[in-house]
Structure formats: structure tokens, C-alpha cells
């Protein structure tokens, strides 16, 4: 009797480990669901929206300009930030605000990306802490799941801060 209970317990533990590992692989390499909070990406993503972020683009280094990404905050690794990629390594980005008279530019260093929120007035992003290393990016937001009336893919950047170069394809 004791041997049967032990056998069943071991079987249960084995299955838990197996499904736990499969779940880890799914969340790490396929995608995860994220609840966004804060006003920095309005009107594209509003407070309490649920989005799906896929991980494959990040592992294959296929994040592009204009993508919305989830990244680890450079000042607190336990906190995640959701922003749009304005520039990849080597790109020129505008560091002055639209209201400034003289525009200043900088180039994104190697291995880094420049992130900005869509709600420029209410967003702490690369304009305050500078470009962040590419490896801090966790995933690319590809689909909005909640609220149901705005279900679907996300729109392009409303802020027109992305500087297109000649090598970009249309």
C-alpha cells in the first residue's frame, strides 16, 4: 500500500516538473501576457490594458524601429517598462523636445536602443536615462487582448520621432 502511494506521488512530482519545464520554455521562448500600467504609452496602450508580447524577435535579434517592446528598467531590474523603439544602434535620434528652438541629435551606441513612450509629455524614457542595452529587452508587444473593443494589432507611432534613413524600406 505504501509503495503504491509512493509510486503515485513520484509520478505526480514527475508530471509537475515536466509541465513546469514546458511552461517555462513557453513563457521564455514563445510569449507571455503582460498587464500594462501607467500613462506613458497613451493613446496606443492605456492603463490596465492586457497585451501579448512575443519573445522570438528578441532572441533572434529582429526588433525593428517602431516596435513596442517590454524591457527591464535600467534602474530597477525587477520592474518592467513598456516603450516604443525609436532608434536602433547607429541610428540618429533627436534628444531635444519638439518645443525647443535648436534641435540636438545623438547617435545610438553599439548594442543599445533608444526607447520613448508615445505620450511624450508624461513618460520617463531614454530622453532622461539615455539609451539602454539591447539585452534588457524582454519581448515585442504584438497584440492587444483587453479591452475587447480595441483588440488587435497596435498602431504606428503617433509622435513622428522616428528619423527614417535612406536604408529603411517602405
Amino acid at each position: 500500500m505504501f509503495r503504491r502511494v509512493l509510486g503515485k506521488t513520484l509520478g505526480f512530482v514527475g508530471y509537475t516538473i515536466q509541465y513546469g519545464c514546458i511552461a517555462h520554455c513557453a513563457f521564455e521562448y514563445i510569449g507571455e501576457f503582460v498587464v500594462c500600467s501607467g500613462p506613458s504609452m497613451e493613446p496606443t496602450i492605456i492603463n490596465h490594458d492586457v497585451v501579448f508580447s512575443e519573445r522570438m524577435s528578441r532572441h533572434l535579434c529582429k526588433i525593428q524601429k517602431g516596435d513596442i517592446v517590454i524591457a527591464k528598467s535600467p534602474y530597477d531590474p525587477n520592474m518592467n517598462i513598456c516603450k516604443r523603439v525609436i532608434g536602433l544602434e547607429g541610428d540618429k535620434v533627436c534628444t531635444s523636445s519638439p518645443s525647443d528652438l535648436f534641435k540636438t541629435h545623438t547617435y545610438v551606441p553599439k548594442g543599445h536602443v533608444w526607447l520613448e513612450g508615445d505620450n511624450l509629455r508624461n513618460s520617463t524614457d531614454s530622453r532622461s536615462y539615455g539609451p539602454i542595452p539591447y539585452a534588457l529587452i524582454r519581448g515585442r508587444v504584438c497584440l492587444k487582448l483587453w479591452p475587447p473593443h480595441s483588440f488587435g494589432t497596435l498602431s504606428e507611432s503617433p509622435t513622428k520621432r522616428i528619423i527614417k534613413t535612406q536604408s529603411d524600406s517602405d
Partner: protein
Amino acid sequence: MVLIMLIATLYSPLSSFLMAQQTTAGRRYLRAFVSGFFVAVPVTVTVLDRFAYVARVEGASMQPFFNPEGGLKSDIVLLNRWSVRNYQVQRGDIVSIVSPKNPQQKIIKRVIGLEGDFIRTLGYKNQYVRVPDGHFWIEGDHHGHSLDSNSFGPVSVGLLHGRASHIIWPPSRWQQIKPSLPPNRGPLDTKEEEG
């Protein structure tokens, strides 16, 4: 990494064989192989991502601690990924991080300062640096031959990959790695600065 995956796919049919009731037809073998594969690969990937990782130290940036002879003999270390799941490190630990200059490369260096420490740098653009929140300062033991915080500045803790806990190859160099700061490389005491 590929070597470990190969080993995993080889032991999975063996373990499924032991579990299968009949060991005759070739189709039974194939089914056992596939089901064993779906167990072995996620478990191996999860162990490598969350618990422990094995890596070869290349280059001379951590001499004389790693690769003291240089040349063809590289040390192989065990990286503990579980101990850094909450991003807790101590000064003097040897850690592996994802390089801020190249996201596909990992570098192994020693932690010299944590957030809030004042560091006297060697060859950085500022002579004194206060490490910002959520960052740390890493250096290779072999100054001058090392791409570390003295070139690219403080590194975000989110790039932390693992903590080197043991040297496992060559067998003559088996040892546990204990955190220790090199002499004269450490955070400045603010009392010393004022004095």
C-alpha cells in the same frame, strides 16, 4: 549548449526504453523517442536557464585568476543562475553578464562596486564615479587587457546572467570561487575622501 542538447536527446530514448512495456517493434521505439524528447528538451532548457550553466572562460581579462597559462588551456566554470534570480550580488563576486556592447556575447568579470558606491576608475572618462541605482561596476583582474566598466561605464543589474561558483576544468584547478576584492580596487569610503 549544442553539446548538452545532443546528450539530452541521446539519454531520452534510453530512459523511455526502460519505461516502455514492450521493446520489440521499431514503431514503439520511435514513439518512445519522441515522447522522451519532449521531456528531455524542456527540462534541460529550464535547468540551463534557471539553475546552472557551464561556460568556458576565454581571453586574458581575468588573469591570473582564470586562464593563468593563457594559450590553448581555457578554464571551464559552473555558473549558478539560481542565486542571481533576485539580482543579489556581493562585491568581489565573479559574475557573467550579457555584454552591453554585443547582446549575443557574455563576459565574465568581477563585481567591484554596487549601487551607491564611489569608485576611483582606471581609464574611464571621469576619474571618480558614483554607481547609479540599479547598476554595478565590474572589472577584469587583468587591468589594461579587459573590456569592462572602465570602458563602458556602470552596467545595469538587469544584464546579470549568473555567478561563477566553481572552476570545474581542468581537474587540477578544481576549486570553489569565493568572493574577494583585489587589493586597492574597491569602493571608496566617503570618510577617506574627506580626510
